[in-house]
């Protein structure tokens, strides 16, 4: 599903943020990527969504080599990967329904299909009764649920979650993690980037530990080591 071969990335010469990363994530896996702040986790996410380019190495997603992705191809890549962020990244002037629908509208989906899919996805994340509210009218946990709904709405093969529980309390964080597990059950590959030890340990799934830009541990049913 996702393959990284000898990937190097640096923002300033001589100080690589990622060093010789080799990674293979299989379809349907639930993988946690852990590491301290500044270890290179978010840079890894940026490489996977085409926000940054590798300096050296190769990145392949679903057989598509995105190493030298052109600007024009970036939207196509992002329509195939669902991404959720710590700060939710919802459009503040659109309702929750419109935020989710937007991901389909940019793909050129018909209005009829959008009206059929979006309520269904809103139901999965438990927000069907708040669809007409604006992001500032709901809680942090609910915002993150909307972000998950938006990421899921075009049925991506991969869901990338970059610190999705970072701004949430323990209860909401647990609920979001359960939701990610639920999504994974349907066959979506989930990559959870987190430094939340309790959540990662509770998941009891594959854990990749990055330290100082390098993978220092990659274990099935792993634990948060750092």
């Amino acid at each position, binding site marked *: 599903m996702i393959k990284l071969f000898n990937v190097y990335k640096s923002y300033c010469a001589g100080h690589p943020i990622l060093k010789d990363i080799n990674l293979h994530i299989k379809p349907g896996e639930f993988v946690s990527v852990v590491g301290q702040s500044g270890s290179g986790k978010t840079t890894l996410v940026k490489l996977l*969504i085409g*926000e940054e380019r590798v300096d050296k190495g190769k990145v392949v997603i679903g057989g598509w080599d995105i190493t030298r992705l052109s600007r024009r191809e970036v939207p196509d890549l992002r329509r195939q990967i669902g*991404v959720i962020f710590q700060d939710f*990244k919802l*459009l503040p*002037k659109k309702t929750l329904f419109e935020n989710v629908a937007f991901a389909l509208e*940019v793909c050129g989906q018909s209005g009829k299909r959008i009206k059929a899919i979006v309520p269904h996805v809103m139901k999965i994340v438990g927000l069907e009764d708040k669809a007409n509210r604006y992001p500032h009218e709901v809680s942090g946990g609910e915002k993150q649920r909307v972000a998950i709904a938006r990421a899921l709405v075009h049925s991506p093969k991969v869901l990338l979650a970059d610190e999705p529980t970072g701004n949430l309390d323990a209860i909401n964080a647990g609920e979001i993690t359960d939701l990610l597990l639920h999504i994974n059950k349907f066959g979506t590959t989930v990559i959870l980037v987190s430094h939340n030890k309790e959540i990662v340990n509770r998941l009891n799934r594959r854990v990749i530990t990055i330290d100082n830009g390098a993978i220092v541990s990659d274990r099935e049913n792993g634990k948060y080591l750092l």
Partner: protein
Amino acid sequence: MFFLSFLRIVKFGLQDISRNIWLSVVTVIILILALFSINMLLVVKVVGEAAIGAVKSKIDVSLYVKPEAPEKEILALKAELSNISSVKSVRYISQEEALEIFKKTKSNNPEVLTALRELDKNPLSPTLVITPKSSDNMEILTHELNKIESSIIDSRDFSNYKIMLDRINAVTDRVTQAGLILAGILIFITLMVIFNSVRVAIYTHNAEISIMRLVGASNSFIYMPFLLSGLVYSFVGVMAIVLFFYPFLSLLQPYLEAFFVGYNVNIVNYFNEHFFIIFGLEFLGIALVNILASYFAARKYAQV
């Protein structure tokens, strides 16, 4: 597919305007103020041209006729002059009339009037005052006047008129040049104000733009609603300035009429006659600036 995308872009653009209503209102107000400055500049230009025209229309040349010339011959000469293509009108001032005018103009100068009384006869010559159709044709007119062969003409020295006209033309040319430079600077400042206002308005959307990019929106989906908003702002701004500026012109008109007594200076008529060219060009100008500013600003924040 294209039609669906177009409809969505229109929807997003209108949604952006309505859901950011205060930002939209502020943007339109800035456009209205900018357009008001541009139209004021136009009013100044029109009034300035009217003033220059008024000064130039005062320019005429006089042909002095021998005092002993019979009136019949003078009137024949007047008719001949009136037939010259560059002549607008010819006025005959008889010896007596010339004396009356002279006395009137020198009424505050008793010494001159006393000297005049001491003379036995009227020292002034009959005059033919020739008004040209255009002060620009002065050169041609004097050439034509010099060609006329008539034994009753006493004097036809036009060198003074040429000097005076050259001076007036030099002054008006300088005023026109300065006006153009000033107008250019003001229009540039106005366009910069519009350009930067739009950029600031889009800056407030920078997070939204990057989010759109992150969920896979193409460039057209990101830029086009902003470009459309820019077009709508431009249209609303121009419509608003039409509504505001005409009452302002109507208020201004009586003052202009009072100032240019005897001259037909009608600023409302000018705007009526040039309505589509003035407001059409203003719309095109600010729409272009709006679109460029929107494009550059949106592009900057879409580099995610």
